[in-house]
């Protein structure tokens, strides 16, 4: 054995991707052992399936007017009935699944990506980045989320893109703050110090040493952000500032169905139940994650 082979080396770090994959699998295994979390997981997976394949399953298009079939009660032919214009409610709910899941999902993913990156840098380097984020967040948190969303969407005009932008602006600083404080806690740990002494690059330390450590907080926060984003999107839809017609938006469908509630109650209950089920599923799932990772997450 030559001296070069003596293992002064650090234990080989699995790649970041491997670590993330491992975390994912253990998390899924732990989730499936908790009955309620499993229910939540199944509900969310079903809705994701519907979001992807809904339009293929739906018997009609969301804007298709079925001749001579206005205001039909739920039946074998029209599972959730038809509305005042003769559109199949079941098909509309299926088509609408895509946006209520995709928009919050995209917005959450972007918020987490930006927020985590900013948070890592702010927590690791401190200084002015830290100050800027904290002050910006204070300013944002002074305005209730829905109020700020209303004003922003009112000015830039309601659209799918607008909703994503608004959610990203609202949630990026919150994720950044969470990751920042988690990073701050890790900065003083021995193995970070060791990595510095080995003169590892900053990128290595941030993404290979610190990121895996803040992953639990990141996972919980992502789940929470996702559930809040769905809540917000649905509420904005109900207030008429969501996805614009003719695209079916569950919140808007509920609002419009109120006028004809006496004649076609199913038109209101179908999208309302869909929202309720989706929110319950996501909440059960994120609660499971909170218990597994022992991290409560942010309340706003």
């Amino acid at each position, binding site marked *: 054995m030559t001296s070069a082979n003596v293992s002064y080396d650090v234990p080989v770090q699995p790649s970041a991707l491997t670590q993330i994959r491992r975390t994912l699998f253990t998390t899924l295994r732990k989730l499936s052992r908790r009955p309620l979390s499993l229910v939540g997981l199944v509900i969310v997976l079903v809705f994701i399936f519907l979001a992807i394949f809904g339009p293929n399953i739906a018997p009609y298009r969301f804007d298709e007017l079925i001749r001579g079939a206005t205001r039909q009660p739920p039946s074998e032919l029209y599972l959730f009935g038809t509305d005042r214009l003769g559109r199949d409610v079941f098909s509309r709910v299926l088509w609408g699944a895509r946006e209520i899941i995709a928009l919050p999902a995209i917005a959450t993913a972007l918020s987490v990506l930006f927020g985590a990156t900013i948070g890592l840098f702010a927590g690791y380097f401190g200084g002015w980045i830290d100050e800027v984020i904290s002050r910006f967040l204070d300013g944002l948190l002074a*305005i209730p989320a829905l109020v700020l969303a209303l*004003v922003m969407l009112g000015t830039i005009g309601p659209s799918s893109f607008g909703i994503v932008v608004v959610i990203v602006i609202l949630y990026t600083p919150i994720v950044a703050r969470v990751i920042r404080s988690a990073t701050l806690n890790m900065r003083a740990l021995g193995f970070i110090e060791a990595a510095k002494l080995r003169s590892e690059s900053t990128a290595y330390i941030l993404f290979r040493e610190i990121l895996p450590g803040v992953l639990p907080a990141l996972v919980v926060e992502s789940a929470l952000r996702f559930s809040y984003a769905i809540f917000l999107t649905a509420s904005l839809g109900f207030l008429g500032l969501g996805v614009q017609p003719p695209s079916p938006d569950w919140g808007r469908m509920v609002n419009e169905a109120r006028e004809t509630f006496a004649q076609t109650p199913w038109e209101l209950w179908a999208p*309302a139940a869909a929202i309720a089920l989706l929110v319950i599923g996501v909440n059960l799932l994120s609660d499971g994650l909170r218990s597994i990772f022992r991290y409560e997450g942010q309340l*706003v």
Partner: protein
Amino acid sequence: MARYLLRRIVLLLITLLITSVVIFALTQLLPGDVARLILGREAQPQALEDLRLELGLNDPIPMQYVNWLSGFVTGDWGTSFTSGNPPIRPLVLERVGNSLLLAFYALAISIPLAIFLGVLAGLNENKWIDNVISVVSLSVVGLPEFVTGLVLINVFALGLGWFPASATAPADATFGEMLSQLTLPAITATFVLLAYVVRMTRAGMIDELKKPYVRTVTLKGLPRRQVIVKHVLRNALLPTITVIAISFGWLIGGLIVIENVFSYPGLGRLLTAAVERKDIPLLQASVMVIVFFFALANLIADLLYALLNPRIRLE
């Protein structure tokens, strides 16, 4: 304490100043010519120019901001863009009163209930009662207000006929009538608040019950009831105050939706109407008032926290 209070009030003013900049900047992004928005498409160029001059729309933006802010502070909130151009201040103040009434009613129901449920769950950690409270608050309580509101209307107004389905709040309604109209909206708001407060109270109880002083007072022979009421509750409820303050933001958001569900003439409904009609002065005034009350609620919560926790007060 006086110094602490002073510092908090200064902070509140700074917050309001920053948000006023944000609100003003956001509303400046609105596309379109305000003068044309008010006078309509067929307006004469001269009339448009006169109005622009009158509203100060030709001034540089920072100047417009200063004028707007000084007007707002001195009580000149401008006039609404809607037909008849009613002055904004009396309109907003009337709506604020209505919203506050609903908010206090909701808080009066939800806070005692949430603390009771949270303490109950915390004392029975992982027993069936804790599980029931957790599951119910997780699932039912996290629903958007328009879903719970519509279910409540359907069951208790249309079905059982116990309460009216809308809360239109006529000025001559008696207190009893008001209360009955506001009950369903208040319960709807309660649902949103309940989840978080229950959750944090439960966590606070569980943490506190594990601390050494609880064992000490138990071992010295204090009855369990006294251990909890005299020692544990005081400490366990401290974080709850902060949570209640934070969930004020949720309550405000909730009220906006709830007022629309129940057609209740509150500030939230005024705000959504202002957004729909692109009524900028009304929008600015409503948001500023909302932010003011939100900041005030946070201030009160902080003061309460400091009063109960000497470590903060004497820092």
